[in-house]
């Protein structure tokens, strides 16, 4: 039961903290993230959503509504262009759910699924912004200068944060009655 577990507080708090951390880290580590001509997109919020699905231990977190809420905040507050993240976040959650059906729950398959998620996320993001004229980078430059560094950064996030987040979710899901 989602409502009875500690996840009720831990999950939304973690989601929004990771969303804000994306912005704060991009600001603080800008010399690293946006070194010309490379640029990395920090996607902690996406990592949190994906790992929440893997670690929920049978407690059904309403992931899609939360993903939409996080997307609306990201759209309004950080990008100022409505309509992208509020659809993209839930889509990636659905993609994770779809892929997870075909793979075991090992670390390796999780990181592969996250890899596919980030590729899909960054590519759809690029394609949508290309269509509406926010960017005019060509596809080759996108692959080399944006997608590759973004993948590297987010896979490092995944490896570093996998065990901390797992133990956090274990703590939040084991004692159901609070």
């Amino acid at each position, binding site marked *: 039961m989602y409502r009875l577990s500690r996840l009720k507080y831990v999950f939304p708090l973690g989601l929004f903290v990771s969303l804000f951390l*994306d912005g704060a880290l991009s600001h603080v580590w*800008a010399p690293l993230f946006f070194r010309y001509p490379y640029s990395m997109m920090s996607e902690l919020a996406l990592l949190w959503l994906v790992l929440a699905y893997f670690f929920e231990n049978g407690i059904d977190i309403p992931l899609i509504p939360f993903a939409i809420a996080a997307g609306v905040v990201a759209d309004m507050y950080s990008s100022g262009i*409505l309509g992208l993240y509020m659809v993209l976040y839930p889509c990636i959650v659905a993609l994770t759910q779809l892929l997870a059906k075909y793979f075991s729950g090992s670390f390796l398959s999780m990181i592969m699924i996250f890899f596919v998620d980030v590729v899909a996320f960054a590519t759809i993001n690029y394609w949508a912004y290309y269509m509406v004229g926010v960017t005019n980078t060509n596809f080759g430059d996108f692959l080399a200068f944006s997608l590759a560094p973004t993948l590297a950064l987010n896979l490092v996030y995944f490896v570093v944060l996998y065990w901390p987040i797992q133990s956090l979710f274990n703590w939040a899901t084991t004692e159901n009655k609070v």
Partner: protein
Amino acid sequence: MHKFFSNRRLVIIVIILVVCFGLMAGSISLRNRRNTPPLIQQFGNDIVGFADSAVALPVNWLQTSFSSVNDLMNTYSENRELKQQVTELAQTKVRDQTLAHENKQLKQELKLGKSMTDYDTVTAAVLMRTPSSWQQQLVINKGQSSGIKKNMPVMSDGGLIGRIIEVNKTNSKVELLSDTNEASSRFAISIGNKGDQVVNGIVTGYNANRNEIIMGQVSSKAKIKVGTKVITSGMGGITPKGLYVGKVSRIGKDDYGLAQKVYITPAANFNDINIVTVAESASQE
């Protein structure tokens, strides 16, 4: 698999796609046209801004304390260098004061009001940067209530870094000059040369590989020297005159060999911005 693209699903997907692109295109054009975002969006942004400062301020604080430890290491050599500069600065400051005073008197004599060189400033801290490859955008912690308006120029490190593109009550968004989108900052700038000739133009783009601002379509035949200082020209009436942009780094021809293209190294580092100054032209009021 044949179920996946059943009629109903397909229709729903197409509708969602259309709505998404409609929203995106709508919010971009709305942002370019209107002075402030719709009230609901403003309200939401203000609330999120408060929540964000709970995360952003500790992170910023951590970074400043780390970098101040770093600074401590090279304090000695820096101090010696700065001392030399301070003695020069005092002289420049006094001269500046005298000139400003004289300027004011002369303006009064001519019955001239405020001109484009008069401006007020608002100082703000940076809360976050958009975590995206496609938008070079900052959120700062001052908004309408501090007198910030759309399109005001923003400076940091003594150099121009961008303009305000969205204003909420308590925070606003800054688009950096390094943003390459089609509707991004087109500041009117000018370069002076030895012979008192002034070359006017606008910022037409940004070269991310070499970190250079591009001033394109310069048809003037005046000779421009590498290293000349570039300032805003005050044309257009929104940006004050005399904000420092950077130095000329090289001069090339455009694709057709007809006009000159001037490349400018910006004075501010777009990746190291903590405190910004928003300049408000005094002659607007």
